[in-house]
């Protein structure tokens, strides 16, 4: 997340002051503006129909009781009050979602960074390793959910076979309320470690000038010291980017849990996105589900804002902070 170019790099002819004041004065500029709007039409329509419209509709729906069959009925903030005070699964699903994210984000990101460091050593065959590490993240969530159900099979699955042959007690994994969440976390990590985060870290590491490491080495810094004092600060923008997207992605966990556990057993993996989904498409409580979706959106926004605020303290931009 280096910087976003919000202005095209066409500083060529600076418009004379009078042109600037008149704005779209010249016919050529009017023509250009008209064509600019014409090319943007698909997105203008898409933005209205699939984003702005639904946002407004969702806000209104969240203030109603709507079961799709009878017309929506305005009930004010009742849905929000119900969510916070009268829904047995609301706080539980939030808690489960955070428990999941608190483990998956740090362990996932540090694992991805570790793999990227290994790949960045410049050994022959690195590209092959990179591809092989990446394959799990390409696996469709549904396929991953199904194949891990089988790997984690408590009685005849290969994982419990290996654990059993070490003489350890065999967990019930996806079938056990105590082990289902750890199992879902393990499946997620399998996809996260070698996935997009690793590729982005790798690119970040390759952007660290070799001279910095050489200079540190001359000053007597060892590998670990170089990692802490040179590598980490230099890739901090990459860490920041992966962290922001990683937290959002973790909080949104849905497909994998829906397939692997359906939220169970005993709601042990009932994540917030599952709660929204079932309210909307299981019980057809469209108003209530809309309220839940807005609470969810607010939580994601708060997390992102906090991180952007904190970023000034630890993210170092070599090109100067924008």
């Amino acid at each position: 997340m280096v910087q976003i170019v919000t202005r095209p790099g066409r500083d060529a002819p600076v418009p004379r002051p009078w042109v600037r004041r008149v704005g779209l004065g010249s016919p050529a500029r009017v023509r250009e503006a008209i064509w600019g709007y014409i090319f943007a039409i698909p997105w203008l329509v898409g933005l209205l129909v699939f984003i702005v419209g639904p946002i407004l509709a969702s806000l209104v729906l969240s203030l109603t009781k709507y079961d799709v069959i009878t017309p929506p009925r305005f009930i004010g903030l009742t849905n929000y009050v119900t969510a916070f005070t009268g829904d047995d699964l609301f706080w539980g699903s939030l808690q489960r979602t955070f428990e999941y994210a608190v483990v998956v984000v740090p362990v996932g990101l540090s694992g991805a960074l570790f793999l990227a460091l290994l790949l960045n050593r410049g050994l022959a065959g690195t590209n092959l390793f990179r591809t092989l590490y990446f394959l799990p993240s390409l696996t469709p969530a549904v396929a991953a959910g199904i194949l891990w159900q089988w790997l984690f099979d408590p009685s005849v699955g290969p994982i419990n076979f290996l654990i059993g042959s070490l003489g350890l007690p065999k967990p019930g994994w996806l079938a056990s309320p105590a082990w289902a969440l750890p199992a879902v976390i393990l499946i997620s990590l399998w996809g996260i470690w070698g996935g997009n985060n690793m590729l982005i870290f790798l690119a970040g590491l390759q952007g660290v000038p070799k001279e910095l490491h050489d200079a540190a080495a001359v000053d007597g810094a060892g590998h670990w010291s170089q990692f802490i004092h040179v590598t980490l600060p230099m890739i901090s923008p990459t860490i920041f980017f992966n962290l922001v997207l990683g937290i959002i992605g973790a909080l949104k966990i849905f497909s994998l849990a829906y397939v692997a556990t359906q939220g169970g057993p005993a709601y042990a993996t009932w994540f917030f996105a599952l709660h929204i989904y079932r309210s909307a498409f299981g019980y057809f409580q469209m108003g209530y589900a809309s309220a839940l979706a807005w609470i969810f959106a607010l939580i994601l926004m708060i997390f992102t804002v906090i991180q952007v605020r904190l970023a000034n303290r630890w993210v170092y931009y070599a090109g100067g902070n924008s």
Partner: protein
Amino acid sequence: MATIALTPRLATPRSRLPGRIVTYVGMTMLVVLFIFPFFWTAASSLKAASDVYIYPPIWIPGVLRWDNYPQVFQLVPYSTWFANSVIVVVLQTLGVVISASLVAYSFARFRYPGRELLFLITLGTMMLPAEVTLIPTYLLFKYLGWLNTLKPLWLPAWFGGGAFNIFLLRQFILSLPHELDEAAIVDGASYARILWSILLPLMKPALATVAVINFIYGWNDFLGPLVYLTSPENFTLAVGLRYFDVTPNQPGVPQLHLLMAAVVMGTVPIIALFFIAQRYFVEGVVLSGIKG
């Protein structure tokens, strides 16, 4: 959009032989860990029904039952699911590539009132969780009578292709010299002609990146088909596999080995595409991280 060297630098003289061997051993052990689930799935898909639930597990079946694979097609409408997935993903990818190019061109090369604001709003939509818009969009498609059809899955892609794709293509166009456009304007070319004959040919790598990323994510998408499709003959592969997973076995007919064969067939195309177009995919992911 500078090209990013994804091939690591050559080994520095500092890394000595013992260190390198340790690294290789570690990296190979990790590969085994990452690849084992694939191996186990593939091995299970080739087992006889009677060998699936045996303990201790059979790692490599003595006889490879390739005829498990054709059996999948008899048990579930697999070829229909596969075809549906292909239809959705192809139409979706086409829509994204075409419409995002138009919008990116508008953002990158035209000056008009409101452009900066529109662009900021576009970036802002990337922060919005899909859950917020999903319910009204569902109601819209219900109103149009499009539930249980493939339209809700691919049609929205034709309206701009989403903020990320627009952003990626816009950045790419900004990196192309503006003199190209100006020379063509002097020669009397229309804007559409500039886009078609000058910019699009130069944008091929970026278009390939957008296409590959969308193809892979479209193939793997689960929530969309889960919400919109209700009858098995309309399923895409993702929801079809799940349907197969939760369908109870007929008495006396174990089907886990066939389910594993179905999983293999659903995963192989995407891995094959990745191997073919790896360069574009990786570049797109990396650019999202560097520039985003």
